[in-house]
């Protein structure tokens, strides 16, 4: 498969003014100029997901299926079989749940080269309520063999993920927000590698593992804990949920002995569960906690309020870190043997 290098470089100014989905639209349009096999598909959300930017530039390679997600995912599979490279965009809730089996059986089972850009992930669509929140999508799609699952921290990382998912000859699910989340990065980081976590803040007392919008929140928390409490918090941006970076997780277990995962997702099945699987399988012991949506349907509300409610914001992370640090688990004298 032909690799395509995007020629777009993001100035801080541009990216900070643009939402992740706008950036995605521009990057995809740029890639479309390089790779003539790229086709864009949407289901009456061309504007909302910004894949419409691609459609404006390449009308002959853009298809709007109306509000019919299942068919759209099935068509994408057929297009990939024909040799095209489909990018499919809708809200995360519909990509993962409405089109679920079409993604799983048509695209993943056949290991087809289809890129799913799922917007409005987590609770980012605040006032739309549970029908439009996607807090189980990672849990669902993580269970599909062949699928790579990426949750970029912000617009800069979205640009990287969209460019680099082209290197994978198979299905990729990229989950982004609505676009009003603050940026975790100050510029695009070219060293971004799918499957490789990024240490955003060094630390030795505890590691906070985050993805998507919680990366920024964890970073803020780490800075505050450092200056206000002398607590040394490592922050890992686990942008790839599958395949997960086992090495980075186990290194954090050894180095900091305390792990807190934070995600805008149900605590069942998402980032926290993926991290827990790695830790449990390693035989190493550590203090471990997952923060996220506690297996409830989420109410209507502003996204920042919902993140506060579920303790996935800066305040919540600080509170949780302090709570874990207060625990007396190191009384276990066999610790050294375990690690």
């Amino acid at each position, binding site marked *: 498969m032909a690799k395509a290098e995007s020629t777009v470089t993001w100035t801080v100014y541009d990216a900070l003014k643009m939402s992740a989905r706008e950036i995605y639209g521009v990057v995809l349009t740029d890639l479309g100029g390089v790779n003539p096999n790229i086709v864009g598909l*949407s*289901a*009456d*959300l*061309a*504007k*909302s997901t910004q894949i*419409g930017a691609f459609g404006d530039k390449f009308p002959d390679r853009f298809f*709007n*299926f*109306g*509000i*019919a997600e*299942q*068919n759209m995912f099935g068509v994408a599979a057929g297009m990939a079989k024909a040799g095209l490279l489909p990018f499919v965009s809708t809200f995360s*809730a*519909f990509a993962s749940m*409405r089109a679920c089996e079409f993604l799983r059986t048509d695209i993943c089972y056949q290991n087809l080269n289809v890129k799913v850009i799922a917007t409005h992930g987590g609770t980012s669509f*605040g*006032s*739309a*309520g*549970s*029908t*439009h929140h996607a807090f189980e999508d990672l849990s669902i799609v993580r269970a599909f063999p062949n699928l790579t699952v990426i949750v970029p921290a912000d617009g800069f990382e979205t640009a990287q993920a969209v460019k680099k998912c082209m290197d994978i000859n198979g299905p990729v699910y990229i989950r982004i927000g609505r676009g009003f989340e603050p940026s975790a990065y100050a510029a695009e980081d070219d060293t971004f590698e799918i499957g490789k976590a990024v240490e955003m803040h060094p630390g030795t007392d505890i590691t906070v593992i985050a993805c998507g919008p919680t990366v920024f929140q964890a970073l803020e928390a780490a800075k505050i804990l450092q200056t206000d409490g002398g607590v040394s918090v490592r922050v890992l941006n686990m942008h790839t949920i599958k395949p997960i970076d086992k090495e980075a997780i186990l290194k954090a277990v050894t180095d900091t002995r305390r792990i807190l995962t934070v995600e805008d997702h149900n605590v069942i099945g998402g980032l926290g569960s993926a991290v827990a699987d790695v830790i449990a399988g390693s035989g190493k012991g550590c203090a471990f906690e997952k923060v996220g949506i506690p297996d409830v349907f989420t*109410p*209507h*509300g*502003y996204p920042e*309020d*919902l993140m506060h409610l579920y303790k996935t914001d800066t305040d919540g992370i600080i509170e949780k870190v302090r709570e874990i640090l207060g625990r007396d688990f190191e009384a276990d004298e066999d610790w050294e043997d375990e690690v």
Partner: protein
Amino acid sequence: MPLTDQELKDLSRTAAKVRRDMVDVTGWSGGAHIGGSLSMADILVLLYWKYMRIDPAKPDWEDRDRFVLSKGHGGMGHAVVLANRGYFPMEDLKSFNETGSKLGMHLDSHKAVGCEISTGSMGHGLCQAVGLALGARVLKKDWRTFVIIGDGESDEGSIWEAAMSAAHYKTGNLIAFLDRNHYMIDGNTEKIMSLEPFADKWRAFGWETIEVSGHDLKALSGAIEFALDYKKGPVMLLCETVKGKGVDFMEGKAAWHYGGLGADLVEKAKASIGEG
């Protein structure tokens, strides 16, 4: 019985009041699905003020008629109607969309009194309406089920799965309204994913289908009365509507699918609607 002149006058005034309130909530909430709320306003007014057997003081009354808003993004419009009909205080509309409010973009049946079914994801409401209709049959109840579907929403395969099942089971107690306002988010339905010949599709799926104005209260009430009498199977009232109906600067404009209104536009919009 056809609407009397007095009824027509009263219902028109109610429809105008409901539309002005929709404009207010759009202003208060920072943004709402105003276009599709305005287009279905007349249908809702006829149902809630004339035809549905309901008692807002007893929202759980077991013999009540059931209403399902399959195009659940019209939750704002539905909430305005429920408040005006007395299901909950008008005051509650002021916190629409706010954190902790009982009311948000897509109504939650656990929180919004009078809302039977939580909707918002397109193409679920009609399926559940078929379930309610079959439920009445099995339980030997004579309540009827009413459902409003969007035209864009009709792209969903599940709408046609539900349509097939309603016709198959001859749900004579199910009446659907199609808010045929010609627009979905990305533009005109015929440009995005053509639906025409739409009435023929419903007929082919076994529904008694009537094409009627969704704004002419007299004509619409005549169609509803026909549907109420028709017991052989499901009835589709394919209602020709205007997205944004009543507000001159919104009518037929795709951009007003969802939007916010500043104080000046709220006043302009309300002036355009008038008193009815």
